[in-house]
């Protein structure tokens, strides 16, 4: 299974970045083989829409689950629309997060019950 972990550094010993959209980067790990790659987050410094851009990147990379500290509303909307499970409140090293995931110790956040567009920025449904 392909996991995406928000990361402060380039390898498995790095700490999990507590932010999803504004994370320094992402480590994509194959939980079966242990193979991984690091991806810098081009949206980390963007003026706005970091969450939606980061979510698009994760989707394009084919990740099936996201392990992070927190997911904002835009990223949540996109990831849940793509059927990607999100595990939040994750801390420690990326390696430990992967182990915790494999050991079934992480809880996924409930997918929003509202349709995907409900997360369009929390803008009072004006879309």
């Amino acid at each position, binding site marked *: 299974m392909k996991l995406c972990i928000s990361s402060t550094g380039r390898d498995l010993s790095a700490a999990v970045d507590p932010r999803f959209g504004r994370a320094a980067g992402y480590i994509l790990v194959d939980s079966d083989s242990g193979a991984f790659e690091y991806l810098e987050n081009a949206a980390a410094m963007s003026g706005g829409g970091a969450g939606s851009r980061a979510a698009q990147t994760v989707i394009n990379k084919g990740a099936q689950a996201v392990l992070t500290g927190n997911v904002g509303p835009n990223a949540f909307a*996109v990831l849940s629309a793509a059927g990607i499970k999100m595990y939040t409140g994750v801390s420690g090293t990326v390696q430990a997060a992967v182990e915790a995931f494999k050991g079934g110790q992480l809880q996924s956040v409930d997918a929003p019950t509202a349709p995907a*567009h409900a997360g369009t920025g929390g803008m009072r449904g004006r879309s």
Partner: protein
Amino acid sequence: MIIAVASGKGGTGKTTVAVSLALSLDGVQFVDCDVEEPNAAIFLRPAIDEKTPVTMPVPEVDETKCSGCRKCSELCAFNALVVVGKRVMVFPNLCHGCGGCTLVCPEKAITEKPREIGVIETGTAGGMVFMQGLLNVGDPMATPIIGQLRKRLDNSKTVILDSPPGTSCPVIETVRDCDFCVMVTEPTPFGLHDLRLAVETVRELNVPFGVVINSAGIGDDAVEEWCAQEGIRLLMKIPWDRRIAEGYSRGEPVARIIPDLHDEFIKLHETICSVVDAAAQSEDGVKKT
């Protein structure tokens, strides 16, 4: 003539200066451009007789035409479009309304629809024409409302723009192409720090400017020293005075609280006029040579 009243730091007295300057003159159009929290109306108490909604264009995707090619998402600098499979998710609050996605879509699946972001209110306050923009609470797009306000300026009057604080897009939209910018600060390290940033901004915009020190007496001389060193005109000082604070708390303009200041504001306007005239003449000179 268009005069913007701006500041780096918030709470230095932009509205105090803008309102009192306006009340000291005839034939004024007053425009509150601080659309995130306009407050000049508290002092001017205008009668509002027209409210116009302000909209901006945001994309709407026809999913029956969309091929999921992601070109719109790749183009959007503000990450307002995300493609999940063959479905485009639009985030209207991130959209800046540039229309690029409608142009780049090969399937012509994207059209624009208006999204209401706020309202412009027009009215009168005494003999003054009053206008203010109100951004909807929670909406991040202040600049398009200021742009709409600026399209409604009446150049036959003395136009006074009460600017938002800071140095970001809404301030640029307010101050650019003005004839003069009054920069209000306070004589404190915070006031000086933010004044320097604001001066840098206004210099970049090529708008003639000068400084008003409000609450003079509460801090130090560093603002005055810096202005002298930089060759920046010190236009006026409004003293720290308990009567001003008390009057302010009741929504009374300072020029009404301390009558001497009324004349000072007239002098401020005269100074601004002479600077603007001199700038216009030197510009003519440049053109001739």
